[in-house]
């Protein structure tokens, strides 16, 4: 689904923070992306989301060379890749419902056509009683789940999540992990960036470990 070949990344004139990355994210797969803080996990997620171009190497997304994609193609591909930012990036002036519906709304769709889906999804993540609440009123865990619901509303082929359990207590983190597992069982590929070893121990999955710019894979 997404293939990296000898990908390297550097910011500006600095040294390469990612070197010679070669791996494949298969359809329906589940993997943790891990490594110490500052290793380049978020950067690698940005590469996967195509919001960053590699300084060298090839990235192939859904059978297309990422470097040759036009801006409009890129926005099409984003409909198939959901991302959960570390800082959620919910819009504070929109309700939970509206935030989650945003990816559909920007496609110009009528609210009536997706209302049911959004409500069902919010129900699934346990936010059915928070539909009309603005994000500043939500707790950290609720914001997290709203951000995840927004990433999923388009039924993407791939879900990227950056430190999704970062600010959560262990119980909530476990619930969230179950959510991702359930999502994966229904066919979505999942990449979770985390430095939380305890979290990874709870779920048998492939691990991509970044260390000193190099990637090691533990299947």
């Amino acid at each position, binding site marked *: 689904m997404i293939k990296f070949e000898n990908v390297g990344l550097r910011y500006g004139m600095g040294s390469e923070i990612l070197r010679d990355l070669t791996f494949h994210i298969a359809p329906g797969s589940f993997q943790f992306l891990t490594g110490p803080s500052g290793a380049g996990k978020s950067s690698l997620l940005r590469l996967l989301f195509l919001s960053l171009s590699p300084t060298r190497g090839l990235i192939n997304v859904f059978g297309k060379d990422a470097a040759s994609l036009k801006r409009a193609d890129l926005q099409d591909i*984003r409909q198939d890749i959901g991302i959960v930012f570390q800082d959620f990036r919910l819009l504070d002036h929109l309700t939970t419902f509206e935030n989650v519906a945003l990816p559909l709304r920007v496609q*110009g769709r009528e609210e009536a056509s997706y209302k049911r889906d959004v409500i069902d999804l919010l129900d699934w993540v346990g936010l059915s009683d928070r539909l*009309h609440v603005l994000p500043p009123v939500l707790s950290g865990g609720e914001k997290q789940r709203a951000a995840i619901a927004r990433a999923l509303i388009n039924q993407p082929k791939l879900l990227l999540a950056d430190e999704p359990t970062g600010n959560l207590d262990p119980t909530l983190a476990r619930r969230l992990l179950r959510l991702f597992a359930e999502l994966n069982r229904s066919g979505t590929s999942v990449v979770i960036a985390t430095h939380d070893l305890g979290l990874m121990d709870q779920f048998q999955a492939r691990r991509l470990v970044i260390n000193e710019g190099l990637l090691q894979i533990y299947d």
Partner: protein
Amino acid sequence: MRATSPISNSIVPRESIAANALTLVIGIMTFLLCLTFGAVSLVSDTASSWKNDIAREVTIQIRPADGFDMENALKTAQQIASGMKGIKSVSIINEAATARLLEPWLGAGLSLDELPIPRLLSVKLKQGERVDFDELRRQLISAVPGASLDDHQAWSDRLNTMAGATVFIGLSIMALVMSATILTVIFATRGAMSSNQHIVEVLHFVGARDNYVAEQFQRHFLALGLKGGAIGGVMAIFTFIIIGIWTGQNIATPEGDQVTALFGTFSVGLIGYAGTAVIVVLISFLTAMTSRRTVLRHISTLDNK
């Protein structure tokens, strides 16, 4: 389960401090620009009416000579002038009137017959028609010796230059205020946009097309521009009306007469109102386009491609 609220929030927040500040700035700049426009159009109208007034009357002077039949000469000159195209009326300034004109210098009770005093004919011109003064002058001189035509050319040339300079200064001020308005509106719009950057980013990352994002902001800022512009424009029109009423009331007082003499009655007229409307529309459009460009420029930095 509760139904979602029927009225959804707009993607760009309607109310924000930045938006209110922008509306205010647009209102003030529109007001100032409209006032400048009104004042400049008034001054340039007035300047051209000076020219018209002065050009609507010319004088024929006839100098007497020995054995010269003045009455006959006046009649001939009157006939010639009346026959010309573009001339409304020609009247001979009679002896009594001429004597009155000269009284301050020569004292009362003098007989014009005893003195070689030149006599005058006042020639009123039709408005908007050209008179061939050279032809008139040629005919007069050949028919009446001692006749001369004063078409106030030197005076009206000077006035022309002055009116031109006045209009030029007015237009320069207008250009300066307009530039200041454009720059202020652009920078204020960019300032208001900077508080919305995170919205642009989120929309982009949930897959919105560039044009869709730009349109959301463009529409919102067009509305802000129209609101601010309308406030400024209405204030300007009120100001025009109030000054118009004020100068109208003062017309009988010496101060009022002075103002009236210089500027006519202070009525900005259709051009002023139409100009105000055009200014409001242009400023709103400028605001919308600036927001669009700011959005597109920001999006282009998001994907480091």
